[in-house]
């Protein structure tokens, strides 16, 4: 949130809205990757990897989500502000999840019920 994003004032006008039009090719590539990953995750789930299954599943999901965010949602080409907003959303989500889970994970460490 630096001073630089105070909006430029002088340029006025009705020129093209999109600063950067993403080439269609990118969309198709991302799409193919998403489809492949969907089926990979479904198939991989049938292999017994013990506790690793969930990590693999989440890892693939994160890759897929990033592809959507960066390319379908244009964050890759977006302003710093957009990136910051996305990042803070994720950061706070992680705070919520991890801090609470940290409580649950450490619940029995004391060896005293309820402590």
């Amino acid at each position, binding site marked *: 949130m630096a001073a630089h994003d105070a909006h430029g004032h002088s340029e006025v006008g009705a020129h093209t*809205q999109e600063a950067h039009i993403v080439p269609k090719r990118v969309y198709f590539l991302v799409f193919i990757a998403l489809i492949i990953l969907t089926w990979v995750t479904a198939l991989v789930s049938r292999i017994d990897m013990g506790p690793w299954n969930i990590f693999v599943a989440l890892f693939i999901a994160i890759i897929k989500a990033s592809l959507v965010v960066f390319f379908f949602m244009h964050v890759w080409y977006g302003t710093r502000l957009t990136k910051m907003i996305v990042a803070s959303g994720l950061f706070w989500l992680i705070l919520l999840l991890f801090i609470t889970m940290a409580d649950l994970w450490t619940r029995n460490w004391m060896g005293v019920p309820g402590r």
Partner: protein
Amino acid sequence: MDSNIVVAEHAQAAHRAVRHHFESAEQQRDASTVGMWVFLVTEIMFFGGLFLAYFAYRHAYPTAFASASNKTDLWIGAANTTVLICSSLTMALAVHCAATSKRMLLVVFLCLTLVLGSVFLGVKGYQYHDKWVHHEIPGQNFHCEGCADATHTPLFFSLYFGMTGLHATHMIVGVGILLVLIFQSWQGRFDAAWHTPIENFGLYWHFVDIIWIFLFPLLYLIDRSGKGLS
């Protein structure tokens, strides 16, 4: 008066879609994009509460979650995920067409998105019906046939319905907005110079897609290897 301000005259932007309190079309577009992203952040946190509940209970009752998850249909889930991803592609293409002023293609891609979204919802409805038939809806008649740790399986199904239900609600809202946008595109309201609604709706639609990208592995893919389930 002690004035620290230099007041200067400024040219007003003259564009049909610029509202009176904005200085320029660019400022207006920027504002709505930022606004849309901020809104999506609130959506992340909104779903975040449910994800937290999910992780907490999966941590506490892994067996119950594994066996209840096996009650969902993996292949239908994967197929439906594919449908949703297709709709994301058509939506992305719709935005592209709006940005390049291709009116007819815009309408076509929006319609495709609408159809794919509806297919997704239909399949979801079918799956709900299936759960209903098998008494796998938490409540009075709940029953999890052959589940391990059956006492805790209602937690899984409560979350299953809570999460997919909230997701489906977002889809239904999206379908409603799509209908309006299709009509407006048909009328030729959007072009390269101004198509903010299309763009923002695209963001929304992709966001809903992302939620599903996480729901699918979390709800459908627990312990699918088939070991250790009685």
